[in-house]
């Protein structure tokens, strides 16, 4: 495949990761911060951008690790462990650098990094990119798209929850109960995107 068609495919994959194959609402990955940190739009916005950043870069990093270390050595079965290690090290490193070099960026983005190190959406995206045999350029698109999809979902959720904050919700449904129902309804709504795009 030439570079041009690869970029085109990357864009399709990116869009499909945002809507039709939303990592959160279709695969239900990354639920913990999705439920825990979606009380305010502002907070979830920061968290969402952190996820975009980490997803994109760890996908790239793990693509390189997989294709240049694990495959040549015949150690593909170790990818779970190695991906986790790479992600954790990367996140830790970025947090440290941000903290020291840019207080503003650290406050907007850095503080969320430790919260999403062990987010399964991050590892999930890296594993999907291996299963689906994406090229490097397509992987960038996929990581970016997954992150944007996650951001979209958590902002929508936070918006709904903020609206609901002053509503009278039956006592048994308050808190996690109504949140899970909202998540389910949102997932149903996102199914409506199926078929719009034929990305892999």
């Amino acid at each position, binding site marked *: 495949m030439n570079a041009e068609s690869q970029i085109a495919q990357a864009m399709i994959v990116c869009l499909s990761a945002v809507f039709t194959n939303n990592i959160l609402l279709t695969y239900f990955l990354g639920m913990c911060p999705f439920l*825990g*940190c979606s009380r305010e739009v502002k907070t979830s916005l920061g968290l969402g951008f952190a996820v975009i950043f980490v997803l994109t870069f760890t996908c790239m990093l793990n693509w390189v690790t997989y294709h240049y270390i694990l495959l040549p050595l015949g150690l593909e079965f170790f990818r779970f462990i190695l991906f986790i290690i790479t992600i954790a090290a990367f996140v*830790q490193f970025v947090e440290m650098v941000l*903290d020291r070099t840019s207080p503003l960026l650290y*406050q907007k983005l850095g503080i969320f990094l*430790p919260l999403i190190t062990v987010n399964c959406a991050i590892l999930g995206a890296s594993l999907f990119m291996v299963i689906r045999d994406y090229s490097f350029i397509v992987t960038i698109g996929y990581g970016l798209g997954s992150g944007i999809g996650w951001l979209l979902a958590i902002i929508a959720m936070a918006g709904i929850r903020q609206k609901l904050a002053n509503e009278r919700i039956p006592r048994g449904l308050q808190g996690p109960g109504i949140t899970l129902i909202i998540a389910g309804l949102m997932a149903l709504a996102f199914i409506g995107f199926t078929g719009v795009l034929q990305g892999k």
Partner: protein
Amino acid sequence: MILSIFIAVVIVSSIGAALAGLLVISEYFFANYGKCKITVNDQREITVDGGNSLLSVLVDDKIFIPSACGGRGTCGLCKLKAIEGAGALLPTEEPYLDTEERELNVRLSCQVKVRNDLKIEIPPELFAIREYTCKCVDIVDLTYDIKRFRLELLDAEIDYIPGQYVQLLTPVYQGSDEEVYRAYSIASDPNQKNIIDLIIRLVPNGICTTYCFNYLKVEDQIKINGPYGDFRLSDTDAPIAFIAGGSGMAPVRCILHHMKNTANNRKAIYYFGANKIKELFLVDEMKMFEAQLNDFQFAPVIATPEEEENWSGQRGLVTEAVQQNLKNASQYEAYLCGSPGMIDASIKVLLGLGMSEEKIFYDKFE
């Protein structure tokens, strides 16, 4: 086969080690904040290595801030006031702080990173809780199943509110293969800040009481932590009715000492319930309090004294004595201490005598 597994493990481990090494090196360059000084409540200064969360450095220093999520910013329990040096409020904290708290500089200590010198304020009761190493200096038999243990604090003094309790760490011994904590009310004179008296009743098969009765010897070292609890004397002028039997005397004794120390003139009567005369103890000391306090009366009540013992005092259950003798109960404040059964029965009687519920304070020994 074996060789390939071996090689695979070595390769993966070395990749992990390389990344860890990279992190250690970068931590040295980037996350090295040097020594930072934390001033707590203007009283104590702690010097720590910068770079960690405030919560974790405080815990390392044995200042225990409550936290349920382990520092991930999802429970909102680890609040404290950061007066200086904590930087701007972080988005991760915002959902847990209301406007009033924000104005008071309340922060989540798990999200605040120690980068420079800090000045913080934590609730005094959290600040005061710590571990003390003590030496047992005296063991006295009070009755056939109650002893008084006097502990001398070796490394520090303890400040507590009379009525509070400490937890005693029972070490591993023949009767128990794990360390357990048990709570006992402080019975000593609060003016003696390096002495803790505990009045302990032997519980059959109790891990801690068996240890104290059969294994703990004078000169032994033992660890306690505290103080805890909100059982305490109110600062009104209402007359007081103490109701406590057995080892429930411990906090009452402490409060009586405190009343003596502070020349508190409140009228007080102490109903002490027991089954037999042999279960009475520290009567001399109570007589002493009667003499030294302005208006204090010790009223022991014996349920079933032996015929030949000639008990001239009140007979029956402690609740019956209260029912008959406590006049104008609605003006009194009641302080109850002891078994849940006794306390529940007493509360019933006191409410029946017209005492309002908010004037009844109790410490259930469960």
